[in-house]
């Protein structure tokens, strides 16, 4: 073992730039470990040979000005990658090979990143445990038969198991923060409009946002800096001046006002989560921040509103998978028969469930009662945050109501599965940024995360707070390599 696996992105880049390590060495190390880790089932598509080749090319003509110089990266299989299969973990795109590159991954490659492979996730990012994937569930490196969270479960698992130094996921209702919390890693859901959605298989357009998943806050800052860009190809992309998030990172948060929303103290919250939250409060106070009790009165409506808006958009976004143009097609006696068979066989149960909910809430006669009302709730939730931010600079909450659960534990109870998103969903509805950092362990030694929610486009601030907390928490992930 040469220690490469334990290095953070920032350290790896430094060592490559100092020629202490070659891109090839680094890439080979992560490939070797990935190959030993098939049990985790994190890869849908491997790109190992090509990655090695690219690493060698990089070493021959290194460009050390690049922010991700020669760094191998595996990404969630929701990002379209040119000439490499992109499935969204669905049978319906089982053999789909894009002729184009998503803006986010393009940003990675432009900064010297090398594609290691495409990572498992919930089908079309619909799920909180990575159990809805057509390619099978993902194992958590934290214990056998434990879910890594979802939908970016493959990403979280691969990162925590050191199969990739960094990764990117997408977050529609918590799909970056919840798996980060479950696997003891850092995950940032950026402000809506900060990262381009171009070339990402869409789930719910008004909520989807790609973001970095890393081992620590420094890496998160650097990776966010790389992927965030204004993109004319995405009409919801926002043209603002992106910062040098890593350079500007500081642990000085003295005088920052942090809100603690009482509505997040939900019924039946475990003592462990309560204690974790309190620990966060104490740490912040120690760092000189001012902790203030606040109210986000409409919080309890967020989850139901989310489970109307997201399926509604999904039901329309997924209409294009009809067997006519690309992807899986079942034989049918006529057009309608072909549609029905293609979509019945091509989509999994969770996707079908959400398409049906979405179709229902948009249908005439129900639109006003469901979709329109959910949009109004969404406005109220945003107002809640706007009001809170008149008093505070950021908000601290737990990332999830519990630690990672067992595979199969919640598969037959979608509502209890949906409840996993209770702390993360309001952030997506409001379009604001939030970061989950590992903050402690439960009694079984499983990681627990804290979430810092910020103002729109104020990522630097929550990164700083996270950085400060991280230095005090000194979290250590307990990974035993049980699968090797």
């Amino acid at each position, binding site marked *: 073992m040469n220690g490469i696996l334990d290095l953070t992105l920032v350290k790896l880049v430094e060592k490559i730039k100092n020629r202490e390590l070659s891109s090839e060495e680094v890439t080979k190390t992560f490939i070797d470990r990935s190959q030993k880790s098939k049990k985790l089932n994190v890869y849908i598509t491997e790109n190992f040979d090509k990655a090695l080749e690219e690493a060698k090319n990089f070493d021959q003509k290194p460009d050390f000005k690049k922010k991700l110089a020669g760094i191998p990266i595996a990404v969630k299989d929701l990002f*379209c990658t040119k000439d490499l299969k992109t499935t969204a973990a669905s049978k319906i795109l089982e053999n789909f090979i*894009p002729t*184009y590159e998503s803006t986010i991954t393009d940003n990675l490659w432009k900064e010297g990143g090398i594609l290691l492979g495409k990572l498992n996730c919930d089908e079309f990012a619909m799920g909180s445990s990575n159990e809805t994937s057509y390619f099978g569930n993902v194992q958590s490196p934290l214990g056998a038969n434990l879910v890594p969270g979802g939908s970016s479960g493959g990403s979280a698992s691969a990162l925590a198991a050191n199969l990739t130094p960094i990764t990117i996921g997408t977050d529609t209702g918590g799909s970056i923060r919840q798996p980060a919390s479950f696997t003891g890693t850092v995950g940032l859901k950026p402000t809506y409009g900060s990262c381009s959605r*171009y070339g*990402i298989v869409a789930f719910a357009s*008004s909520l989807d946002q790609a973001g970095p998943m890393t081992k620590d806050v420094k890496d998160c800052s650097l990776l966010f800096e790389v992927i965030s860009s204004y993109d004319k190809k995405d*009409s919801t992309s926002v043209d603002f001046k992106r910062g040098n998030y890593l350079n500007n990172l500081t642990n000085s948060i003295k005088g920052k006002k942090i809100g603690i929303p009482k509505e997040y103290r939900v019924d039946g919250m475990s003592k462990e989560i309560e204690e974790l939250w309190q620990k966060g409060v104490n740490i912040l106070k120690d760092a000189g921040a001012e902790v203030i009790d606040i109210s986000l009165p409409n919080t309890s409506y967020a989850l139901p509103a989310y489970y109307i808006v997201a399926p509604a958009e999904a039901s329309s976004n997924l209409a*294009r998978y*009809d067997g006519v143009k690309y992807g899986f097609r079942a034989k049918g006696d006529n057009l309608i028969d072909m549609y029905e068979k293609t979509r019945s066989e091509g989509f999994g149960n969770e996707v079908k469930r959400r398409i049906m909910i979405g179709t229902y809430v948009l249908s*005439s006669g129900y639109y006003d009662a469901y979709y329109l009302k959910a949009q109004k709730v969404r406005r109220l939730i945003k107002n809640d945050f706007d009001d809170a931010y008149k008093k505070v600079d950021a908000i601290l909450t737990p990332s999830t109501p519990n630690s990672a659960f067992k595979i199969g534990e919640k598969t037959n109870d979608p509502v209890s599965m949906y409840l996993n998103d209770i702390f993360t969903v309001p952030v997506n509805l409001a379009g604001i940024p939030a970061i989950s950092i590992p903050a402690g362990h439960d009694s079984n030694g499983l990681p627990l995360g804290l979430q810092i929610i910020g103002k729109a486009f104020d990522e630097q601030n929550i990164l700083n707070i996270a950085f400060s907390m991280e230095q005090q928490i000194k979290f250590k992930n307990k990974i035993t390599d049980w699968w090797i």
Partner: protein
Amino acid sequence: MSKNKSNYLIKRNNNEYEVVIGLEVHAQVLSKSKLFSESPTKFGSEPNTQVSLVDAAFPGMLPVINEFCIKQAVKTGIGLKAKINKKSIFDRKNYFYADLPQGYQISQYKSPIVGEGSVVLDLPSGEKTVGIERLHLEQDAGKSIHDIDPQNTFVDLNRSGVALMEIVSKPDLRSLEEVNIYIKKLRSIMRYLGTCDGNMQEGSLRADVNVSVRKMGSTNLGTRCEIKNVNSIKFMQMAIDYEANRQVDIVENGGKIDQETRLFDTKKNETRSMRSKEDAHDYRYFPDPDLLPLVLTDEFINDLKKNIPELPDEKKKRFIEKFKLSSYEANILVSDIETSKYFEEVIKNTDVKLATNWITGELFALLNERNLDITESPISAINLSKLVDLIKKGTISGKIAKSVFEMMAEDDKDPQKIIEEKNLKQESDPKELEKLIDKVINENPDKVKEFKLGKEKLFGFFVGQAMKISGGKANPQLVNELLKKKLK
């Protein structure tokens, strides 16, 4: 069927029925690229050669509004004297069809870009204002081709994503003639603005026709049927006539009209039920989350307003006031922007009245005969202007002018040159004409005698003879005068 053209009533037994018509015109925006992608929109290209990843709805592809199409829609709205909505929203209209790659059409449902406006029709009985309900932007679908292969349907996505303006009229039309004039007026306005070429053969202009009937005197609207996608004025008229009569028959037999969508079968000349209200698609409209609401600034709208060309109504008014044309003449000249341009070019240097007659008379007859558009006129405006001027100055007679016109129609030659080459210049020299007249008098002593005894009708004979001898070149006016003197 009707007493006069603008009074279209259907009679059954002792009842008279009024036909109420509203049109939803789909006008293709004149634009090089599509509404939400950069693909070209050229008509008649090979199938699937103008399709981007966005048009074919590949995973992760996103629509981006083409600002030019927005400008075109706003300009059209201004031309329709309509309210421009500073905020409009693109919605998704969800339905499955093989030539609809996204599984939804991006359209504007509750908040269109253009609101209420009006169009003025020139009817034989006078002017009539037809209300415009709204204008919204939407994507066209692709085309399913069923007749290439017996087993399979082929799909051509070239049209997929092309920008359409749907212009919805109020139910203000009452006759087939009004429908004809309305469509032509709409097309004329859009061609003046350069926002739609109005080419019905290429499908740039299609309409859904809403028809209902009611007993004369009733002010309530009857239940309407919508006839989908009719692509010529003639078919619209045939469809309306069939549909109105069908509805009257139902009412007369004590039946009820079902609100439904119907298709017009051009071969059988009848409308057929496509789907009833109960079977109507539930389109599950909702705002497209990939697109932000479209917000227009006053500056944007005003810039477009400033650059709106003179439109047919204003041009007509100016022609009548400035050139003393009749309303009828002005209408003919302004209805097509190219005709009006031609006219204004011709009258730059010559007499307006004479030019108007030559354009609406000889030139239109020529174009009609050869089935040509004014832009393809074999005679340029400059040369026609010269011809008119030669007549005006008395260089040639009207009769000679007609033959010169015919020669010009072959090769667009300068009429001055034709006259010189063929020696067609009018003879106006009194001495030469006197010689001519003397010849006529000397050759016809009997006729002279009769004339002098009172048979005045013979005067025409002498003129004719003089003209004949001159080969048509004698100035008829001078011949008249001289003859009168000689025969006194």
